[in-house]
């Protein structure tokens, strides 16, 4: 096995349902040990892509390889190396959490003792040790989600697929899931996760693949994507309204593009080429001109802005990015 070979490779994946194209030639490459976030609005084809990569669905066209094995021709080999956490918690409601994990462990051919040991370990890891003996029926949504995640980790997989892993979790649950994912990545697992939370992609992913209508419309690191729609901007609030015009003249010399001025709120903003040089130069020049500032900051475009500019340029595709319920606790 070539060590430099990407762990997940998809080329031109196509899938249609009736007349509808769920995937229309999706390409995806994830290097070993990386976290790739597949970002897209509802119906973009995220779940379809994950199901094909996890051998649950046959593609109509294209090919895909996971951990060096073809997902269509070498399904069993692929299945021995992946973990899957689907969009919907796929656990047995009647059995207890522990029974679920033991069952999946035995079906992953761990052997009775190892499966039991592994179940205990994962229950403890996901804060389910106390409720492990209770029927899943009585679990909260978040507990179910954590159990589902634990089930995906039974084998400490080479590749872990997570389809919207934190949907429906409270901020604390989300942080726990994020921490587990980071820990896994630290141990060498490659992760493909789909999400609608831009923040999640920003925090976890090494690379992001934005998909819409079944194909990739942008890819890169979070930074690359942010740069793609424009670099850094400097933003200033001056203390005295009378200084706005003077400040605009100062910034004009430093900026790499037109200066936007909002006189009522005494704000100025402009794109800059070299962030640190621009910041020090602005501070120095404003002080020299005797202009006092209330606030001065460098700002990067958020992934939300990137996402909107990528998917909403066509007026018909209006999408409100799903936001984590309240705000993050970390």
């Amino acid at each position, binding site marked *: 096995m070539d060590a430099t070979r990407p762990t997940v490779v998809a080329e031109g994946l196509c899938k249609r349902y009736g007349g509808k194209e769920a995937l229309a030639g999706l390409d995806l490459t994830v290097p070993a040990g990386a976290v790739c976030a597949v970002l897209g609005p509802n119906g973009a084809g995220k779940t379809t892509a994950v199901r094909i990569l996890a051998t649950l669905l046959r593609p109509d066209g294209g090919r895909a390889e996971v*951990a060096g094995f073809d997902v269509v021709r070498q399904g*069993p080999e692929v299945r021995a*190396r992946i973990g899957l956490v689907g969009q919907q918690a*796929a656990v047995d409601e009647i059995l207890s959490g522990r029974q679920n994990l033991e069952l999946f462990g035995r079906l992953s*051919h761990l052997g009775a003792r190892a499966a039991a040991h592994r179940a205990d370990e994962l229950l403890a890891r996901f804060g389910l040790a106390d409720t492990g003996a209770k029927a899943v029926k009585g679990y909260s949504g978040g507990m179910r989600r954590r159990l589902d995640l634990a089930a995906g980790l039974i*084998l*400490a997989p080479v590749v872990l697929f997570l389809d919207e892993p934190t949907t429906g979790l409270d901020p604390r649950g989300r942080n726990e899931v994020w921490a587990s994912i980071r820990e896994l990545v630290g*141990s*060498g697992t490659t992760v493909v996760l789909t999400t609608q939370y831009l923040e999640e992609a920003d925090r976890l992913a090494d690379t992001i693949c934005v998909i819409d209508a079944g194909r990739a419309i942008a890819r890169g690191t979070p930074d690359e994507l942010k740069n793609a729609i424009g670099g850094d901007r400097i933003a200033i609030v001056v203390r005295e309204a009378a200084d706005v015009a003077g400040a605009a003249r100062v910034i004009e010399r430093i900026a790499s593009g037109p200066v936007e001025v909002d006189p009522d709120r005494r704000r100025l903003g402009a794109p800059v080429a070299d962030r640190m040089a621009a910041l020090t130069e602005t501070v120095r020049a404003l002080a020299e001109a005797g202009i006092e500032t209330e606030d001065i900051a460098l700002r990067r475009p958020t992934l939300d802005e990137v996402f909107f500019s990528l998917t909403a340029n066509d007026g018909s595709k209006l999408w409100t990015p799903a936001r984590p319920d309240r705000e993050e606790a970390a």
Partner: protein
Amino acid sequence: MTTSTPTPTPTHATGAPVASVAPTGALAAGAPGGLHWAIPDAWTMTRRNLAHWVRQPAQVLIGLLFPVMTVLLFGYLFGGGMTLPGGGDYRAFLVPGMFAMAMLFGLETTFAAVSTDAARGVTDRFRSLPMAPSAVVTGRAVADMLYAAAGLAVMVGAGLAIGWRWEQGIGRALAAFGLLLLLRFALLWVGIFLALVVESPEMLVAIQILVWPLGFLSNAFAAPATMPGWLGTVAAWNPLSSTVAAGRALFGNPDGGGESWIAQHAVPMAVVWPLLIVAVFFPLSVRRYRRLGR
């Protein structure tokens, strides 16, 4: 590069709980999904289904006692007013019919279990594991057959309690029980197929509505000879009727007098009908299961 080299093994930090099982755990155990796993995996799946009963004793009890209730209901409430063509005790006539009805109700058990797994994504979870794919279905089949046998045992107890007897020796009685379980086995595939088609446990009510006329339009409760012409023919040719009639013949119970060809060939037809059902619904179920991936 060789093709079967174990692929990138994440180097897990020792002591980190998430990582304490290396992925080679699954690989060392032989070809994943290989044929030699079919039986151990099927047994694991069977035990999972048995564990459901342990966790739901009330449901199991209701499932086992419901057919007993029908026996009592029909035997004592309506039984008094029934006179059989050809003579004989109505309750002795009814009990083999109720055995077959219990097998028919089993279809609902199978349907509920398979459709719940499909709808909840549990079937997909199994399909993503390196287990033998056949075990999902064989585990179901073994568990359901065990449940059917338990249900039959309860019914036999109830039958004996209300005065039903097998009159022609244990050998022929066992043959009759075998035919009943054969019917259950055939209906298993009908249940699996229907569950994979609709994938929605809410449809159980619809299945129950379908199952009842199937049960009543048979010789289980009344002799087809007493029904209006065409209805009698439909009832006589109902696959359930052949099993019931074969049971009555083998137990030596009153049969309500049937002169039709189908009634005269009850025992062979009690083998042919289930085999026919299996021949149709087994491949359909397998095809449907494979199509989950389409």
